[in-house]
Each structure stands twice: as C-alpha cells, then as structure tokens.
C-alpha cells in the first residue's frame, strides 16, 4: 500500500514561493531538468512522510483555472486529468484575497486540496492576524502556515496532504463549494443537470462543466466537442448560450465576469471574518525603490546602466580568473607534451586536441558563472518585472509589449530557456515573433568568444573615470556588441510585425511582486545549474567536435621533403649564434609557418579553403571560416576550434604561442570585431534551433530563423568590414 508513491501537485500564483517550497520539500532529490527561474512545464521531485513515498509535481504558476497561456494550460490539464492524488495550493499570505481566488476554483476540480499559507512571516510582519482555524472551517480544507525560505512547516504540510490523499471521499465531502447567489445558482443547476446527462466524467463533473459552459470556456468546449455526442452537446451548448444571455441581461456584464466577481466576493467575505489587519500596505519600501527604478524618465537609463554594470563586473572579476586558468591550461598542455616522444599522435591528440580545444572553452567558466549570477540577481530581486515595465513603451513601438522583454533578459544567459519562457506570452503571434529574434540577444556561450577577441585585439584601457567607476574599453565594446544585438532584435521584430505577424500586440497585464532579497541558496542554484550545463557541454559535444577537428587537421601530413626544409631552416637559425631573445623569436616564426603549411595541407585546411571565398567579404580567411563552421553547433566551439587550429607543437627551448598571440599575429582589430559580429548574429546553435522547433511546432520556423540570421550576419559583417577597410581599419 504505502509502496505506491502518492502524487502531490504544487499549484499557486506566480511569486507565491512555490519553487522555494518545492525545493524545501524535495531537498536534494530534486530532478534538475528545468532551468531555474523558468518553470514552464511540470517537474518532479521525491519526498517522504511517515514512510509514505511521495512524488511532488511542481506546476507552472497560474492565477486561475482559465488558461490563457501555454504554461497555464499545462497546469490546468494536469489538474483536470487528475494526474495527482492531492493538490497543495501555495498561497502568498501577504496577498491573501488574490491567492484564494484560485482556491475557489480548485475546490471544484474533484481533488482533495490542502492550503500552504506561505510567507507567513511576511503576513505577520505586516501586522496581519490570520485566524487559520476559522478560515480552514469556512473553506473546508486543512491549512498549514509555512515559511518556505526558512524551511518551516513542511513536515506538517506533507502529513496533512498525505492524510487528505488517503481519504479523498471524506476530504471532498468537507470542502466548501463556493455559491454564486440564487439567480446564478439556478442557471448552474440547470446546466449541470444537462451536462450530467452527457456522462463524461473524464472532462469534469457536472457542476464544474456547468460553470465552464456558463463562462463559455474555449478549452472545456473543445474537450466536450472531442468527446461528446454531437446532438446532445448541441442541446447543451444552446442552453448554455441562453443562460449566458439571461445573465448578461440581468447583470450587464458577461457571465464569466459576474462569476469572477462573485468568487472575489466569497473570498473577501471569508477574509473579513478571519483576518485582522493592524497595519495596511505591504509595499512601503518597494514603492520607495520603485519611485526611482520605474520613474518615467530615469527608468530606462537606470536599466541601461545596470546592464552595463553587469558586463563591467563580469569582466572585471572574471577575466583575471580566466587568465589564471588559461596559464594553467598552457602549463598542463606543456607538461603533457613532455610525457611522450616528440611526434606521438596520442600526445598530440591529448595536448593539441583535448586540452587546447576543450580547455580553451573551460577557461571561461568563471565569466559564465558571473553572468548567470547577475541574471539571477535581476530575476530573484524582482527587478526583471520592473525592466518589463520600463521597456514597455519601447517594445510597444516595435509591435510587442513589455512582457516579451523577460524572455529576452533570460536570453542574456541562455537562449534555450528564453525560448521556453515565451510560453508566458498569451498571443501566439507575439510568441513566434519573440522566439524568432531571441538568438540576437547575445547569450552566455558567446561571451567567451568576445572575451578572447577583446583580450587579444583590444588591450585593456581605462577610457572614462566616472565617480570612481572606471569604464574600460573592453567593457564598453562588449556593451556595444550586446546593444547591437538588442537593436537588431528590435528591428527584426518590427519587420516581422509588419509582414509575417501583422496586427496588434496582445494585452500586457502582469503582477508586480514586491522587491525581495534573494536567498544565497537560490542564487547558488541559479548559477550552478546553467554553469554545470556549460561544463557538461564542453565535456561532450565540444569534446567530440574537437577530436574530429584535430583529426581533420592532423591528416594528411606534410610530405617529408617539406618537413625537412623546416628542419633545415631551424638548424640554420641555431647556427647563427643569435642572442636568446631573437633566437626564440626567429624559431617561432618558422614554427608558425610550418604549422600554417601543415594546416593548409590537412583535410580541414582544404575544406576551409573551399568555403573561405564565401566569407571573404566579411574579412575572414579559411582558418576563421573553418572555426565558424564549428560554431554552427555551439557558439563557444569557435574558440575550441581556433585552439586546435593554432595549437603549436612546443620544441625544447621555445616559448609557447598562445591563442591570443597567434590571433594578433594573423589578423587586424577590424577582423577581430567582425568575428564578434558574426558570432553574435549568425546561425543560432543546435539547441536553440531544436527549442524553436519544439515550441513553434513546425520545422519551418527554425529553418527560417537560421536562414534569416545567417544572411543578416553575412550582410552586416561584410558592410562593417568593407567600410572599416576603407576607413583604414
């Protein structure tokens, strides 16, 4: 009996602390599959209570059982299909009325409901005294106060949920059924009688169906049409229509709005009886911060400045660590090369392939982690919602609204969860337009490429000292790249809105949560999950690609007579009796030349030379072209590929040539900048294309996304390179 796990569904408004509670309940057993900050599909975790094994499903946040967005549909269907044994409704006690609105609907779905009165500490701090026993009586459900962020109340919560699940009949019998007043009840009863005759318990029980029919709920009608007998249904629909007309005539509002109003009436009544307010407003501090942060003139500049700070700090803290790791990587490669005889294939694979390639990518892990920290801070403090408010006007002008900006902000971390986050948008056209331009928002995987190029071609310089904050050329250039991305995304949206997705943007309503101090644990999770994903990618996809690249670059080898020529040159230099400095410099030049000839001779060199003409107008030679092909799979692959291409065999007594030095040796600043541009715009990575396919439901959208971005990249980069060259760059 107790071996069968119980399933508990966690439901609640956004920002009720649901995710925090989920993590507290499931501890470390949580199945990490979702990207933190975006709960757009159900995710499961394990727990147990008194020996009973429990499976907990965290569902996307929702305000009601009327589904408006993709993620809300997931929650709603999960509950209506009774995929759980019991529902825990997570309630933000400092926002009681609005939260209990959802309860009034949950009481009808035929599952036992237990309420977690979360953020109980906040309600108390606001001076609210909630009479739990009374409210529990009025609603007919168990209520457990919890403070998820401090792990309080969870044992009792689980115990109550298990008890309710073990005796569903008794729980359901106790649950209050919100009444809507005589007139409406009459209509509901009539419809319920008709709906009962359809005999479709799978779609919902009669009262639920009656209410949904009265609301003319598209989703329910769709389900009925799929299952019910046509003629019987037509009769029910006709009665529902008549009932709606009668209600509308009586109340001068459509039935669904009257019903919503009644539910709030029910909730307000309950709250008035059970809650004593000693102090009002819970928004004092939040409002104070907002008077600046969302000020109509200051809001946008403040937002831009915060984003700039993100990049500056990421670089300022991350680069020194990345440099250290880079040195470590070089030393490791050098050491590995001493392990075997010169010319050993296995040593070369390990040193020039794996260490140079994968290592070049891993070196940038600190930067990535910092970037995710910054995004986590924006998200978990509640600032992201303000950003959406601040840019609403701007987004309105290009044909979207502020809410589309939230996926974009997430996209600064990684495009894949950003594409998933478009599920929060109500209109499908808004969603597709946002999805298609999201790759233009520069993600974390592109940061290493910029970091490499900037460090190589643009030595760090302080250009401006503002109130003790020194702006460096690197941070400003980086900011510029990101701005170019955002500007192009906005332009692309505008074009899409004029052509493929013409029409008004959907309506923008969003709750503004109070500002909150994030917990360290939540922040660590936000950093750890995506950073670890990045590392895993380096250890799998990128490793594989790097090994292929190394193979293609190593064969076919230079003919022996050419190798001998280089040997002779080196012997010649040694015999000239030069000072140590010059000696190593001259030797290095010969080495680079030999390496270069070998590359051209190799398989990859031949392929690269073949495609190079296409990218020549962008300022790229065959080496860059080859590395860019690697970047099709994942952007950071570019570095790995360049690392492999430029891995130069050490010879005793010679200095290593770092990737940076090699780049500066071969290319100009302008070419460096063009690489950044191309990486920014061209060809979204595989994972992005797959996500677009999945979320749009058709392969034509990722195909379109790939094509237009790659063509755009070519055009923009070519324009910049050609103009830059004319100006003498």
């Amino acid at each position, binding site marked *: 009996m107790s071996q069968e796990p119980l399933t508990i569904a966690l439901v609640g408004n956004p920002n009720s602390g649901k995710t925090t509670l989920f993590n507290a309940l499931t501890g470390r057993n949580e199945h990490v599959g979702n990207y933190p900050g975006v709960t757009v599909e159900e995710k499961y975790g394990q727990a147990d209570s008194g020996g009973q094994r429990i499976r907990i499903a965290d569902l996307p946040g929702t305000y009601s059982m009327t589904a408006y967005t993709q993620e809300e549909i997931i929650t709603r269907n999960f509950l209506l299909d009774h995929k759980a044994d019991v529902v825990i409704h997570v309630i933000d006690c400092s926002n009681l009325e609005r939260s209990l609105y959802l309860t009034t609907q949950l009481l009808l779905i035929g599952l036992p409901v237990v309420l977690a009165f979360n953020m109980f500490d906040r309600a108390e701090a606001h001076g609210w005294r909630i009479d739990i026993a009374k409210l529990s009586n009025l609603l007919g459900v168990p209520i457990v106060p919890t403070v998820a962020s401090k792990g309080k109340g969870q044992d009792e919560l689980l115990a109550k949920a298990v008890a309710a699940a073990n005796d569903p009949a008794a729980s359901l019998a106790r649950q209050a059924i919100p009444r809507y007043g005589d007139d409406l009840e009459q209509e509901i009863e009539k419809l319920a009688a008709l709906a009962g005759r359809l005999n479709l318990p799978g779609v919902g029980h009669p009262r639920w169906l009656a209410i949904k029919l009265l609301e003319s709920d598209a989703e329910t009608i769709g389900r009925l049409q799929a299952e019910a007998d046509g003629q019987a249904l037509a009769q029910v629909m006709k009665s529902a229509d008549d009932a709606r007309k009668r209600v509308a005539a009586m109340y001068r509002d459509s039935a669904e709005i009257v019903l919503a109003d009644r539910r709030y009436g029910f909730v307000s009544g309950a709250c008035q009886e059970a809650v004593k307010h000693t102090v009002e407003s819970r928004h004092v501090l939040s409002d104070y911060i907002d008077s600046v942060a969302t000020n109509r003139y200051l809001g946008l500049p403040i937002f831009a400045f915060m984003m700039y700070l993100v990049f500056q700090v990421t670089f300022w803290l991350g680069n020194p660590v990345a440099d250290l790791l880079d040195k470590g990587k070089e030393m490791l490669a050098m050491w590995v090369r001493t392990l075997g005889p010169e010319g050993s294939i296995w040593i070369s694979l390990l040193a020039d392939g794996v260490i140079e390639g994968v290592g070049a990518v891993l070196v940038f892990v600190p930067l990535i982690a910092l970037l995710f920290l910054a995004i986590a801070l924006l998200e978990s403090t509640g600032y992201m*919602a303000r950003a959406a408010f601040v840019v609403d*006007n701007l987004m309105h002008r290009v044909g979207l609204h502020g809410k589309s900006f939230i996926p974009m902000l997430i996209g600064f971390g990684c495009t894949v969860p950003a594409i998933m986050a478009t599920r929060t948008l109500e209109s499908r056209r808004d969603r597709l337009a946002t999805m298609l331009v999201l790759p233009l928002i520069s993600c974390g995987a592109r940061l290493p490429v910029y970091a490499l190029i900037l460090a190589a071609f643009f030595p760090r310089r302080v250009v401006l000292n503002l109130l003790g904050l020194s702006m460096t050329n690197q941070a400003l250039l980086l900011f510029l790249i990101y701005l170019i991305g955002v500007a192009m995304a906005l332009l692309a949206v505008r074009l899409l809105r004029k052509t493929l997705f013409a029409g008004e943007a959907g309506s923008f309503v969003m*709750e503004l949560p109070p500002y909150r101090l994030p917990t360290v644990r939540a922040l660590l999770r936000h950093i750890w999950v995506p950073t670890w994903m990045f590392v895993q990618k380096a250890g799998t996809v990128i490793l594989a690609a790097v090994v292929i690249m190394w193979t293609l670059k190593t064969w076919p080898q230079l003919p022996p007579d050419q190798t001998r020529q280089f040997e002779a040159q080196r012997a010649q230099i040694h015999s000239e009796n030069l000072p140590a400095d010059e000696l190593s410099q001259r030797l290095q030049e010969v080495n680079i030349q030999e390496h270069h000839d070998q590359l051209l001779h190799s398989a990859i060199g031949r392929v690269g030379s073949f495609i190079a003409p296409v990218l020549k107008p962008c300022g790229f030679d065959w080496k860059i072209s080859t590395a860019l092909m690697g970047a099709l799979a994942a952007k950071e692959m570019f570095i790995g590929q360049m690392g492999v291409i430029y891995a130069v065999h050490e010879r005793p007594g010679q200095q290593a040539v770092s990737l940076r030095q090699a780049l500066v040796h071969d290319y100009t600043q302008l070419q460096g900048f063009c690489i950044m541009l191309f990486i920014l715009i061209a060809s979204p990575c595989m994972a992005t294309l797959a996500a677009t396919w999945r979320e749009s439901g058709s392969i034509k959208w990722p195909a379109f996304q790939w094509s237009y971005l790659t063509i755009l990249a070519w055009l923009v980069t070519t324009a910049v390179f050609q103009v830059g060259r004319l100006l003498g760059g």
Partner: protein
Amino acid sequence: MMEHRETPALPVMPLSVALVGQTVTFLGVDGGNGITHRLAEMGLTPGERLEVVNRGPGPFIVDVRGTRLVLGQGMVDRIQVRTVME
C-alpha cells in the same frame, strides 16, 4: 432623473488620463471580453477601485486589492474608469 441632479455623474474616462495617486473605479475594457475576464481573475473586477501608483512612459502600475499590477501601454487607453469622489 432625480438621482442625476443630486449626485452629478462623474465622467467616464480612459485610465491613461488618470493621475498618480488618483483612485478610480474600474468599469471595463473596450473591445475585449477576454482581457476583461483576465483582469477580473487577477482581482480587477468591474466596480473595483484601483489606485494609480505610478505611470511610466506608457504603461501604468496600479494597486488593486493590495497587489500591484502592471497594465501595458496598449491597454491603458482602452480601460474605462470613473473618478471616485473622496
């Protein structure tokens, strides 16, 4: 008729002309039953009072039943409200 003379009918106006700090009664949204329903479910039912907390360069932040809602630029023109006499 009598009623009209005693309590002068306060004008109906779009939310977009309301001032920060002003409390108004929500009446409905022009041309959108779906969105009126959505708003109702988030607590903004017809007849409910709302206070303008902040207005940005387009969108509004309003207080409804103790929670803050952002109403986008595209909506504030279509939301009908009536001034409340204190």
